[in-house]
């Protein structure tokens, strides 16, 4: 299947979405309202106009009667001019009894009569005819046609007002949308910001304040719960990680660092001293009688012996973390100093002193452990870890041989 090319358009902003929604709604409402108002207004106006025309025809048929009887056109003209002066009258025609035109009167402002007539017809505004009766005899007729001035004005005013309303509502919609957006989008922005903080900086301690909108409050609550859950989870994870990494380079029996840790530690100490000056002393220790104790008293006692040696070294060391078990009964200790000779003398003494006396390991066993100590000094005895280890190792063996010999 060939995937359709998906053009990804940027999603519209909330404000725009709100504004668009409001605008459509408001436009619909305003247009419907103005349209219905216009129609109903036109109907009402039409009724009034028709009534107006009928009334004028009635009035004229009475007022013009003497003028017709006296055959006085000018008087009739003046009456007409006064009575039909409002622009709701298009024309008036008076005929005498013989059907001859006695007087015609037209609105001076000649509205496009075709359009006016067509519109009038469309609106159902027919000319109104009344008889002029004098002493029971029809002496003429008066015909009055309504003008569309008022209707034109009303329509125009309606359109203008509707447009103004539209304009105002469009502006109001924008403002409303902005306010709504502030209420809705600001909390969302804050959520996004906090989420970014969590993703990029692992700041899990921040929380959302509920903004006061039910759905977003609910969301914020859940979001905060999620953050709390994440935080707890991360704490557990980091604890476990620390535990694991502690286990990886530590000897589980004595709790001392193993060979790997020792090498890292020594390398770091060497590079530090090489930069800052000073000396690093590596002590290398070995139990003289570990194999014998193991064989005689069993592995349990052997383990206890190792723990005792570890404790002794730790008590002597500057930093408990600088003591390591390299394997079997081999231990190492790293010390930084400015006076290596004094340190070596003091430490050797302390170590040998602490281990030369018999130790009560259990109630049954009082054991003489005894350790051999060799040392190497950086930078005096070598530059690398291997050189230093070789020197320390050979010194220790020399001492061990001496011990055994003695």
């Amino acid at each position: 299947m060939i995937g359709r090319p998906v053009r990804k358009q940027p999603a519209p902003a909330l404000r725009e979405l709100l504004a668009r929604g409001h605008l459509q709604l408001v436009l619909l409402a305003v247009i419907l309202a103005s349209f219905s108002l216009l129609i109903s207004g036109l109907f009402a106006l039409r009724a009034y106009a028709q009534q107006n025309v009928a009334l004028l025809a009635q009035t004229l048929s009475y007022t013009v009667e003497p003028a017709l009887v006296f055959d006085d056109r000018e008087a009739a003209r003046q009456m007409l001019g006064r009575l039909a002066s409002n622009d709701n009258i298009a024309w008036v025609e008076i005929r005498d009894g013989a059907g001859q035109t006695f007087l015609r009167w037209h609105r001076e402002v000649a509205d496009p009569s075709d359009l006016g007539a067509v519109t009038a017809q469309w609106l159902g505004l027919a000319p109104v005819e009344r008889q002029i009766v004098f002493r029971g005899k029809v002496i003429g007729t008066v015909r009055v046609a309504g003008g569309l001035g008022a209707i034109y004005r009303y329509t125009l005013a309606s359109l203008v007002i509707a447009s103004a309303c539209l304009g105002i509502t469009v502006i109001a919609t924008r403002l409303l949308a902005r306010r709504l957006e502030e209420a809705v989008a600001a909390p969302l922005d804050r959520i996004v910001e906090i989420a970014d903080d969590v993703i990029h900086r692992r700041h899990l301690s921040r929380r959302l304040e509920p903004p006061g909108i039910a759905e977003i409050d609910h969301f914020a609550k859940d979001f905060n719960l999620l953050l709390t859950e994440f935080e707890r989870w991360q704490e557990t994870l980091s604890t476990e990680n620390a535990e694991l990494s502690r286990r990886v380079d530590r000897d589980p029996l004595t709790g001392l660092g193993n060979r790997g840790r020792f090498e890292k530690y020594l390398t770091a100490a060497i590079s530090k001293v090489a930069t800052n000056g000073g000396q690093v002393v590596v002590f290398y220790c070995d139990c003289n009688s570990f194999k014998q104790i193991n064989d005689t008293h069993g592995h349990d006692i052997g383990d206890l012996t190792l723990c005792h040696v570890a404790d002794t070294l730790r008590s002597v060391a500057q930093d408990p973390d600088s003591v390591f078990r390299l394997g079997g009964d081999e231990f190492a200790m790293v010390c930084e100093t400015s006076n290596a000779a004094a340190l070596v003398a003091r430490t050797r003494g302390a170590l040998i002193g602490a281990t030369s006396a018999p130790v009560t390991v259990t109630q049954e066993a009082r054991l003489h452990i005894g350790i051999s100590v060799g040392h190497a000094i950086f930078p005096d005895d070598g530059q690398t870890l291997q050189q230093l280890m070789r020197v320390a190792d050979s010194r220790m063996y020399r001492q061990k041989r001496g011990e055994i010999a003695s």
Partner: protein
Amino acid sequence: MLTNAPTWLIALALAAESQPVPVGMPLDNDADPYRAVVARMVRAIVQYSRWPGNPRHLRACVVGPTDHADDLLKGREVAEIGVEVVGRSPDRATPAECQIVYIGRLGINEQRKVTARMQDGAVLTIAENDPACRSRAMICLLFEAQTLSFRLNIDAVSRSQVRIDPRVLRLSGGDSR
């Protein structure tokens, strides 16, 4: 009466130019163009007038010599509406006998004598020869070049027991337009 429309239109234009000019009935093409129009005018005025008790028959007395009342004297136009026309000397016309008095070519004092005599009765007084309307007749005819019109003496009208339709007041040149 519509045959001389162009001249009539000119008169109208003139009338429109200089208001208020009394306007009225267009004239005929005749030896005496006013003759027939006077009869019609009297008829129309009578038709818009109301006497107390609405008498069925009215008598019009033409008083003194007249210039334009020939048709009226013959009863033209007015006979149809039940008006009988008689000629009377100024002294013999009385309110008891005449409901309408048409005053002819008399001096202003004689005219006044007639109108004074008629004042107490229900009499419609029409003066032919009084364009300034000083004879205290209710209606003064105005003979103009193109038309016949009239002027109302409001004082006389309001004093008289004969009521004239107020719409006619509008037509006349004598009202307070």
